[in-house]
């Protein structure tokens, strides 16, 4: 019997039912179906019974992931359906919400067999474009800049691709929030005081993205990969089919969980299909000279080509 929970949200093409309010997520409409994922509070074990793989603060096994921050909260993610949190007394709702939208959400999506990238996504003219890159490479900043140029925001941090019956891959809208570093806020010419801090003690702020539409998803046309290189000028080049797969694999969100979950082969196979369908373009950003405007111009030009 599924739990009856007070709050319901729509994200990544799924309905999430939660025991606590998650203000960053979009509430469901009256037409939305029963919940796909349940986020509840409860007791969480200190260890999985049979972990197949583990890191400093995570364990994974088929159908189960345990992840925690000492002194803050522990999360148990099971079978692509439930996330249980056991918060410490000092854990604030905003901290719990921010943590939920990170590894626990990625884990439950991976358990459901979905392709999740650590990426940003925007769309225009019926086509979706993904921006992949390492932490701090500027994905969110570029997505925000493109949103100011008329692109519709789709998702940031976690981008989920869903294969439709027509064979296309669609990026389902995530939470309508972009999290920006102080430097990005300056670069984008935003007023930091108008943006809500992520958490006390964390030097990041969040911007609500108004163009978000949770009922809409469009085929993924191109994937841009942000890379910093020791070259003098910005350059874009297409990634060939052989190189695509390792590139895409590198940016699977929380990809380190896959081995213990026993889903590596499935994900690999699915990424192979994505690689065959979608153009991947390497953006080689000069380490020495950076202009956000020039970067966005180059991406727009490539989108139009």
């Amino acid at each position, binding site marked *: 019997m599924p739990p009856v929970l007070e709050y319901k949200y729509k994200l990544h093409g799924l309905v999430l039912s939660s025991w606590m309010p998650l203000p960053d997520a979009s509430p469901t409409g009256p037409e939305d179906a029963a919940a796909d994922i349940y986020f509840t509070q409860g007791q969480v074990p200190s260890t999985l019974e049979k972990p197949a793989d583990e890191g400093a603060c*995570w364990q994974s096994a088929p159908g189960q992931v345990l992840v925690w921050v000492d002194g803050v909260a522990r999360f148990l993610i099971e079978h692509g359906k439930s996330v249980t949190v056991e918060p410490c007394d000092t854990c604030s709702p905003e901290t719990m919400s921010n943590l939920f939208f990170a590894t626990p959400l990625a884990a439950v999506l991976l358990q459901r067999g979905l392709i999740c990238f650590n990426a940003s996504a925007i769309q225009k003219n019926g086509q979706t474009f993904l921006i992949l890159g390492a932490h701090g490479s500027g994905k969110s900043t570029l997505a925000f800049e493109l949103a100011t140029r008329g692109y519709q925001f789709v998702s940031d941090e976690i981008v989920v691709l869903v294969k439709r019956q027509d064979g296309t891959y669609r990026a389902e809208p995530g939470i309508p929030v972009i999290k920006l570093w102080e430097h990005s806020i300056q670069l984008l010419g935003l007023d930091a005081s108008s943006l809500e801090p992520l958490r006390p003690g964390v030097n990041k702020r969040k911007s609500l993205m108004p163009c978000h539409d949770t009922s809409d998803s469009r085929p993924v046309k191109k994937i841009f990969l942000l890379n910093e290189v020791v070259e003098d000028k910005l350059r874009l080049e297409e990634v060939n089919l052989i190189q695509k797969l390792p590139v895409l694999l590198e940016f699977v969100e929380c990809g380190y969980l896959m081995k213990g979950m026993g889903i590596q082969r499935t994900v690999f196979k699915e990424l192979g299909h994505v690689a065959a369908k979608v153009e991947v373009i390497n953006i080689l950003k000069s380490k020495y000279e950076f202009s956000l405007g020039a970067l966005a111009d180059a991406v727009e030009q490539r989108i139009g080509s």
Partner: protein
Amino acid sequence: MKGLIWLASYPKSGNTWFRIFLANLMSEGEKPVDINLLNTHNWRARRTFDPVAGWDTSLLTPEEIRVLGLQVQRSMAKQRPFTILKAHDAFTAPDGDREIFCRDSMGAVIYLIRNPLDVAVSFSHHLNQPLDQTIALMNRPKGKLGEMKTRIYPGLPDQLRDWSGHASSWAEAKGIPLKVIRYEDLRQNPLREFCQACAFLGINKSQAEIARAMANSSFEVVKKQEMDHGFREAGHQRPFFRKGTSGGWGEALSQEQMQSIIRSHGEMMRRFGYLDEQMRPV
């Protein structure tokens, strides 16, 4: 040797040179390794740290990250024994004396130290900022490197402390397997120093192999590689491998700048042979 191998230093004190040497030694190749493909990781790089931690560390507070850092080290030592890691952090955090490094997962530490007068010149060049600003950072008890204010930084901030605090936190740490190497000694007698370092780390290589790795990591070789192909660890618009000398500070620092460094770090400088008994630069 069990546990993590740390190459620790204040920035611009020979850490990268040592890493390139080790990469060449381990590759056992005839040709120099590509300086853009070094296999010794900066443990503060988020692409190294976050997957082991299990969290996007941009969501966490500095104290949560410090605690997590100890757990990350334990996990790394368990999963990947004999991992060589680069660190610019002091042994203890600037706020209080909480340790940043996990003693029970520590295999060995090479601590590289360099005359702070030379460090100031090289660091200023690397950061592309004026000498006075760099000296102020070196004198700041809570100095940090890589906070997200001037650019997006793909790593977690390095907890530097001031130059003396950095040096004393490592050199005076009790009960850790530590070998301190002066950059100046490494330059003056590299074969002896590298051989001793290898023996300390339990790396079983012949003198000929060490000499070959030294040749493949010489200043001229790495400088040429950087000129030909760039170096991804370089600062903004500045070459990383600049002069590779010791004692060049005399041409770059004013008397006032020199005195500022000596006033702040005189005791540690004298201890490591950078000042004589009268507190004059050696």
